[in-house]
């Protein structure tokens, strides 16, 4: 939302503008705001949990306290992040009842069940073992502790599965019939395993791991640039880099496969993210538009920068299109998404970040290979450190952009082809939704600022390099090779 918040005057104007909106738009804005904010937290809850499992496994195998300290340090950030994730998740669930009651009634049979499964299978597992993972080091045997960490990671990733299954069902509803204003489930497994499910789950799970590892790498790079605990952070950087090198190529592949699926199931979304206005015949070789200024009024791009003949290479890796593609102009205005510019650029931002991060990883691997990657390199080349530091916010931006493409691109449908967003929203007084939306906007801004503040304090303080692992009868004094704190 292009909301000018620089001065109090324009804030007032912005609120006045909001007050003129209809309740459907306000409910949508509220869902968008709460979803965008909420999405910031499960990223680490899911991806960093896997890193914690790896660290603890290494510690249990080697019994080297360095790895124990790694696990304890990253867990500090994990818990700060987790609490906000739990809290900001509540409005996501309850909004389906408060603001989207017709959707709940329309699809509750399936959609509600899936959210219930997520709670019982994923959420509870994660929350039930988190206490032991965080505070149970002295309370339970190491094996039980490790099992708890695994359960936290497993629960978080199951959560990705259920949420993405539910969202994919909104994109490609299947497994039942639609009649008298209801979705009647015929086959639950077909509904859960709807066409988008597998690739969406993979794409999202990889995204959380990739962005989490970018966060670890960024924090490590920042600390190494300042020569803080170099041995500690060089290890965490290298471990994150190894995981990234495995994940990033897979993610590029998963992203491509998702786009291919969008072309097949949601032609209007594909046309919008490519600002494709006119129909393209099978066998043609359309240009691929890199940058453009889409103009919905005229149904064309004001200007564009494109690569001739590249479109079918990107979509189908072949010189000509095998299938015809419908442009946006061939759909009635109430059958296709609007905000084409947003979709077009959100998609490009996501792809560009994914590719740029992969390039940075490749460069770092090359340095490592050539023996040039040491704790000193980060202080020596600030640009290198900064590239890694910036990759963390970029990772979050890529995830948010992906969700914008996914959900704004699904419009005007909430359940694709079956239930319009305008019909899915509760009829509520404008003032009611406006109030909750405004409170969320203010609250979430404040929370984000403080979360970043406290997060950076944990980072600035750095790891405790003298922390002794549990289960040692007498504390063993190990030489502190890192030398400084």
């Amino acid at each position, binding site marked *: 939302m292009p909301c000018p918040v620089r001065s109090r005057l324009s804030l007032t104007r912005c609120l006045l503008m909001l007050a003129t909106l209809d309740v459907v738009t306000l409910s949508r804005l509220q869902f968008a705001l709460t979803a965008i904010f909420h999405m910031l937290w499960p990223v680490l809850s899911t991806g960093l949990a896997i890193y914690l499992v790896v660290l603890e496994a290494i510690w249990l195998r080697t019994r080297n306290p360095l790895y124990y300290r790694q696990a304890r340090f990253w867990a500090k950030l994990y818990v700060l992040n987790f609490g906000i994730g739990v809290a900001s998740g509540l409005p996501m669930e309850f909004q389906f009842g408060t603001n989207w009651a017709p959707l*709940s009634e329309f699809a509750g049979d399936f959609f509600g069940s899936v959210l219930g499964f997520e709670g019982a299978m994923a959420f509870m597992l994660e929350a039930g073992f988190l*206490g032991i993972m965080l505070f149970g080091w002295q309370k339970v045997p190491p094996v039980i502790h490790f099992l708890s960490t695994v359960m936290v990671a497993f629960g978080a990733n199951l959560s990705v599965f259920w949420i993405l299954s539910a969202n994919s069902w909104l994109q490609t509803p299947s497994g039942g019939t639609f009649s008298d204003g209801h979705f009647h489930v015929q086959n639950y497994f077909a509904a859960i395993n709807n066409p988008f499910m597998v690739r969406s789950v993979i794409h999202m799970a990889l995204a959380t791991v990739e962005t989490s590892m970018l966060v670890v790498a960024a924090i490590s790079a920042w600390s190494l640039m300042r020569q803080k605990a170099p041995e500690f952070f060089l290890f965490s950087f290298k471990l994150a880099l190894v995981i990234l090198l495995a994940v990033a190529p897979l993610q590029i592949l998963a992203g491509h496969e998702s786009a291919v699926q969008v072309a097949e199931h949601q032609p209007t979304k594909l046309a919008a993210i490519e600002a494709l206005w006119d129909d393209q015949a099978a066998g043609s070789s359309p240009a691929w538009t890199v940058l453009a200024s889409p103009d919905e009024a005229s149904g064309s791009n004001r200007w564009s920068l494109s690569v001739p003949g590249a479109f079918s290479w990107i979509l189908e890796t072949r010189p000509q299109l095998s299938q015809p593609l419908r442009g946006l102009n061939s759909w009635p205005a109430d059958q296709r998404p609007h905000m084409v510019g947003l979709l077009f650029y959100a998609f490009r931002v996501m792809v560009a970040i994914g590719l740029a991060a992969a390039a940075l990883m490749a460069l770092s691997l090359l340095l490592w290979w050539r023996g040039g990657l040491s704790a000193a390199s980060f202080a020596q080349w600030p640009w290198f450190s900064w590239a890694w530091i910036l990759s963390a916010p970029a990772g979050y931006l890529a995830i948010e952009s992906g969700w914008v493409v996914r959900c704004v691109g699904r419009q005007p449908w909430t359940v694709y082809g079956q239930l319009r967003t305008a019909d899915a929203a509760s009829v509520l007084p404008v003032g009611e939704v406006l109030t909750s939306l405004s409170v969320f906007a203010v609250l979430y801004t404040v929370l984000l600022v403080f979360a970043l503040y406290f997060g950076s304090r944990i980072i600035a303080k750095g790891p405790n390099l003298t922390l002794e692992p549990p289960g040692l009868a007498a504390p063993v004094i190990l030489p502190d090779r890192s030398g400084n704190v």
Partner: protein
Amino acid sequence: MEFLEWFMPTVWFVILALFLLLYVILDGFDLGVGILSLTSPSESQRTILMTSLGNVWDANETWLVLMGGALFGAFPLAYGTILKALYGPIYLMILGLILRAVAFEFRENATNKRPWNLMFGIGSVLAAGSQGICLGTVLSGIPTDAAGHFTGSVWIWVNPSSLVVALTLIQGYVLIGSTYLILKTSGELQRLHVRTARLAAATTLGGALLITFTAPFASETLRQRLFDPAFLPFFVVLPLLGVALIVQLFRSLAMQQEVWPFAYTVLLFILSFAGLGVMVFPAVIPPSVTIFQASSSVSSMVFMLTFIGVLIPIMLFYNIYNYIAFRGKASAE
């Protein structure tokens, strides 16, 4: 099939009641401790209170998420109607829970803990109070049309009887929070919470009596149910048990027992809950929409039951393990 059409909604009503009961007991003492933290005499004592919640608060809150999911899946109509009617208090509760959760995490990392202490306490009061308002509003009835859609006003939840329920629930949470702290603390802090428990037990009792005697005047359906001979045994046995438990609670507090005050409070919660269940069943949107009208399809409920039903004992098992692993007194480290 006819059997299932009666049986499955009933099973889900019971499961929902179980989730809600677990939530009210477990997050009840969480919220109660949160409210009590406002009165902690020192920072180190407050830290002990926070430590007593550290390993359990998010799992406890998850029962609410679970209850929401189950209500959504099993009774989609009720989910939409009730939440829409309770728009205001639901968002106030969410606001309270968010403030509480982040204050908990931020406090850990803050040098100046005072603003976060305040936010934690206020968030707890807000969450507890709005839950009471939700409960009070649902009990006094939600007006619906023939299709079960909400037809009342935005301000339906603003009335004296909801306020009484809200204040009583806050007292009840303070009571269960106090008895939990008797269990988890020692010395001066423990003695303090024996006093708060006694006070809260008295105020909760007062509120509960007020609700019991005014409810039949507020709602026609409740009045009918109360004088229905079929339900007479319940309305004789439940109050008698209640009186016995209250007497036992005060005795155990006077005897400075550690475990029993909490156990009696939990039993009192279960008893009140059973009473409420008897009052509303089979309505899921009191007064008129029953679980049979609001339920999702039978196949949907069977499917959910196969997944979630199996998980209930597993969830209980690892939650109990969590409590066992952290048994004993909480410390300030």
